C-alpha cells in the first residue's frame, strides 16, 4: 500500500494537505497529534467553502452500508470534540427523522431499518398515528417515518476553524490565501507543491482534500472520479420558539430541516448556480420560491416565519454517492479524499482520523475498498473542470 512507514523510513513523513475544509483540517489535526510535520495550503480561508456553509447535519441514518462504518466512526469523534479540539462546535444529537410521503418511500425506510439494526443503530419505524402523537406539528399528509437516535447537527462555521486551530497548536502550519497550482513528483521521492502566494514546499505525502476542485487538481495522480459539482441551496428563518426536536429530512431529499439552538430554522433543498470561474455560487430564484413552500407544507406552523437569508455552497458528487478516498494505482504517496456527495461534514472527522492511519501505518480500521479512486476506471472520464 502507500504507507510512508512501510517504505522503511525512520522519521515521520512530511505531509502537505491541499484544502482546509473539514477533511483537510481534521486530517491535519490527527496527523499533528502523532507528531507529523503537516502543512495545509488553502486557496481561500479555513472552512470558507462547503465545510463552512453546509447544513450541519451529522447522520448515520439512511447511509449506504459501505459508508456506514465510516459515518459511525466519525460519529464517535463528534461526541468527543470538546475533549479533542477544545470546543464542542455546538454539536447536539436530538436524532434524525426521515419522512416518507408515499408507501414506496416507506418501503425504503423499512429496508434500511434492517441495515441500521444490523449495525446496532437505535432505529425506530413510526406509522402515521405514532408520528402524529410524537410530532403533532408535522403536516398530516405523511405516510410514516424512521427515527434514528444519536444523529444530530453541529455548527459548520465553527468546525473546520476549530480543527485548524487545534492542529496549529500541535505545530501544523495553515497557509490561507494560497492556491496550489502545481504538484511535481521529485526524482528522489516525494513531491514539490507550489502555487500562488506561498513558498513552494516539499512533502513526502500529499493529501488532495480540495473539495469540489479536487477532481481536476488530482488529475495527474490517477483516475479522476467523474464528479459532478452542484450548489445545494440553504435558507435560514428568524428565530422562533424551539419545538422541532430531531433533524428532519424527506426520503425524496427535496428538503432537510433543523432548528438551531437559538431557534432559527435552517433548511435546505434544491440547487443554486455556480458562478463563472467555478469558485463561488449563488441562490436560484425558483428554488427561492419552491423550497420555502415545501417547508411550509411540512410544518404549517412555520407559515408566517420570516426568511432571513439564503445561500449556497459547492460540493462534488460521485456517480455512486460514495466518496473517493485513497491512492490511485501507481501513484503512491498521493492520497485523494473528495467527492463526499453531500455527506462530508458528518464523515469529515472520521475521514481525518482514517487518513492519518493510512499515512502513518499504511492500514486503516475502516475498509476503504468501496471508496477506491480507481473504481470508476471503466466509466468514461470527464473533461477537466
Amino acid at each position, binding site marked *: 500500500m502507500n504507507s510512508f512507514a512501510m517504505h522503511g523510513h525512520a522519521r515521520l513523513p512530511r505531509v502537505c494537505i491541499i484544502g482546509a475544509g473539514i477533511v483537510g483540517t481534521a486530517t491535519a489535526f490527527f496527523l499533528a497529534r502523532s507528531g507529523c510535520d503537516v502543512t495545509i495550503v488553502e486557496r481561500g480561508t479555513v472552512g470558507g467553502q462547503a465545510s463552512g456553509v453546509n447544513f450541519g447535519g451529522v447522520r448515520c441514518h439512511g447511509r449506504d452500508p459501505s459508508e456506514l462504518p465510516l459515518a459511525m466512526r466519525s460519529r464517535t469523534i463528534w461526541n468527543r470534540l470538546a475533549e479533542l479540539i477544545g470546543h464542542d462546535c455546538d454539536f447536539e444529537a436530538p436524532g434524525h427523522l426521515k419522512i416518507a410521503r408515499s408507501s414506496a418511500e416507506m418501503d425504503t425506510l423499512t429496508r434500511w431499518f434492517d441495515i441500521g439494526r444490523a449495525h446496532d443503530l437505535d432505529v425506530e419505524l413510526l406509522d402515521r398515528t405514532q408520528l402524529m402523537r410524537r410530532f403533532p406539528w408535522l403536516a398530516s399528509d405523511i405516510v410514516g417515518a424512521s427515527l434514528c437516535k444519536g444523529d444530530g447537527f453541529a455548527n459548520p462555521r465553527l468546525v473546520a476553524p476549530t480543527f485548524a486551530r487545534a492542529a496549529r497548536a500541535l505545530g501544523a502550519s495553515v497557509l490561507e490565501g494560497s492556491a496550489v497550482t502545481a504538484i511535481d513528483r521529485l526524482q528522489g521521492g516525494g513531491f514539490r507543491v507550489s502555487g500562488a502566494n506561498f513558498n513552494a514546499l516539499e512533502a513526502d505525502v500529499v493529501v488532495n482534500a480540495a473539495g469540489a476542485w479536487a477532481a481536476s487538481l488530482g488529475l495527474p495522480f490517477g483516475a479522476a472520479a467523474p464528479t459532478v459539482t452542484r450548489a445545494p441551496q440553504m435558507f*435560514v428563518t428568524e428565530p422562533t420558539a424551539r419545538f422541532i426536536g430531531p433533524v428532519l429530512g424527506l426520503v425524496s431529499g427535496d428538503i432537510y430541516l433543523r432548528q438551531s439552538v437559538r431557534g432559527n430554522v435552517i433548511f435546505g433543498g434544491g440547487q443554486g448556480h455556480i458562478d463563472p470561474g467555478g469558485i463561488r455560487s449563488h441562490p436560484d430564484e425558483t428554488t427561492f420560491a419552491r423550497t420555502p413552500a415545501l417547508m411550509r407544507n411540512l410544518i404549517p406552523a412555520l407559515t*408566517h*416565519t420570516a*426568511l*432571513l437569508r439564503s445561500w449556497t455552497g459547492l460540493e462534488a458528487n460521485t456517480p455512486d454517492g460514495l466518496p473517493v478516498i485513497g491512492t490511485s494505482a501507481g501513484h503512491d504517496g498521493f492520497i485523494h479524499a473528495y467527492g463526499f456527495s453531500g455527506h462530508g461534514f458528518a464523515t469529515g472527522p472520521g475521514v481525518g482520523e482514517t487518513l492519518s492511519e493510512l499515512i502513518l501505518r499504511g492500514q486503516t480500521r475502516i475498509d476503504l475498498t468501496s471508496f477506491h479512486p480507481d473504481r470508476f476506471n471503466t466509466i468514461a472520464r470527464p473533461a477537466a473542470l
Partner: protein
Amino acid sequence: MGNETETPRIAIVGGGPAGMRAAGLLAAAGLRPVLFNEAPEPGGQIYRRPPPPLRTVLSPARLYGPDAVRAMALHSDFEAVADRIDHRSGTLVWNIMKQEHGGFRLLHQDADGGQGAHNCDAVILATGAMDRILPMPGWTLPGVWSMGGAQVMLKGQASLVGRRPVFAGSGPLLYLVAWQYAKEGGRPAAVIDASTFAAKLRAAPMLAARPAVALRGLAMAAALRLRGIPVIEGAHADRIEATDTGMRVHWSSSTSSGQIDGDAVAIGHGLKSEQQLAELLGCRSRHNAESGQWLIETDPEGRTSVAGAYLAGDMAGIRGGHAAEFAGELAAWALLADLKHRDNASRRAVLRRKLSRQDRFRRGLEQAFPFPQHRIASLPDETIVCRCEGISASALRRAITDWQPADVNRLKAMSRCGMGRCQGRLCGQIAAGLLTAQLGRTPGDVGHLRAQAPIKPIPGSQLIVEKGAVE
C-alpha cells in the same frame, strides 16, 4: 443593453426625493419608468407624509418647516406626471440580479404580500439611508428610539415618543428632531451633542457652502436653549437606564459628567447609506475616511461600476434632501444620455455644479459632527452590539481574540454578529470598528458585511412565484 428597437425599460428603486425626481424626468422623456417604493407614499424619509386622515392635522408647513415649499413642489411635480409612471408603492425590492444577456432582474414583494419579478434594461437605485447608531449599555431598552424613528413617529403618525425625551448623538438631525419635538408639544429634557463647539467652528468654512442651511442649524440650537432646554456639547451619552418614572441618561464630557431624566431617549449619529441592492449587483465600493463608511463608487453623475446601474440620493453618500433631488435628476439625465435617447449637457453641468457645492457642505457636516469612531474601541464589555442576536462587545472581543478573523465577514461567521433580522445593518460597522481597534488593522482591511438576499426578512408564506410548482 436590451433590445434597441423597443423603448428601454427603466426601473427606479426608492420613492424619496432622488427617486421621485429621476422618475419625473424619465416620465417627461416618455419612458414610463417603473418606480418601486417600499413606503406606501412617495416622499421618502425627509418628505414623509402622514396617512390621509392625519394630513389636515399635520400641514406641510408644520411637517417640513422651511423645506415646506420644496416638499410641496416635489410632491406636486411628481403628481403632475404620475400617470406616466408605473408607481408600485408598498413594494419591497428584496433581490436584484444581473441578467445573462444584459439588464437586470428585480424580485419584489408587493403591498398585498404577493411576489413578483421584474426585468429591466437599466436601474436607478435610490434607497436612501438609515440611522447610524453608536451603541451604549441600555440602548436596547424599551423607550429608546433611533433619531429617525422618533421623527417618523412625528411625521408619519403625528405622535411623540415621549413628552420629555432626551436627544443624544450628533449630526444635524439631532437638533432638527429635538426642535420639531419642542414645536409639536414636547419638551426635550436635553440635547446631548457628541460634537464639540470647536469642531463645528473648524467646519464653518465648508458649511458656508450653504449658508442658509448652516444658519438654520444654529438657529435651532439657539431656539432650544432659549426655551431653557439644556444643550450639552462635546458630551457623550455613556449609559441609559430605566428608572421607576422613566429613562435616565448618564453622560460625560472631557470636563464634566452628569445624568438627565426623561420619559424616552432618541439616539443617533447621523445616517448611513442603504446600499444592499448595489452590493448585490456587485457595484464597487470603497471605504470613505471622512464619513467612516463604505460607499459605492460612482462618477459625478451617478454611474456605478456596473453598466446600466445608477445611484442617486443618500444611497451614494449622505448629502440630504436637496442634493437627492439634484442627484436623482442627474442620474436620470446620465441614463438618458447613455441610452442615446436624449441629452442635455448644459443641465447636467448645472446639476453637477450644484451637487459639488452640496458635497462641500456634506464634508463640512462630517467635520462638524464626526462619527466618534474612537468610542467603539472603548465600548463597555456589557454593551449589546448586535441586538438581533444579543451579541455583546465582550463576546465580540473574545471572538476576535479566539479566531483572529481576517475580516468582518469572518467575525460574523464566528460570532453570529450581524446574522439576525437586520442583517448587520446596525451592528456591522461597530463590529468592524472593534476588529480594527483590537487587531490594529485598517477599515479597508476588515471590510464590511456582505449584503445577502433577501435584503429584508420576508415571510416564507409569501414566496410563491410559480403556482402549483410544489406538491
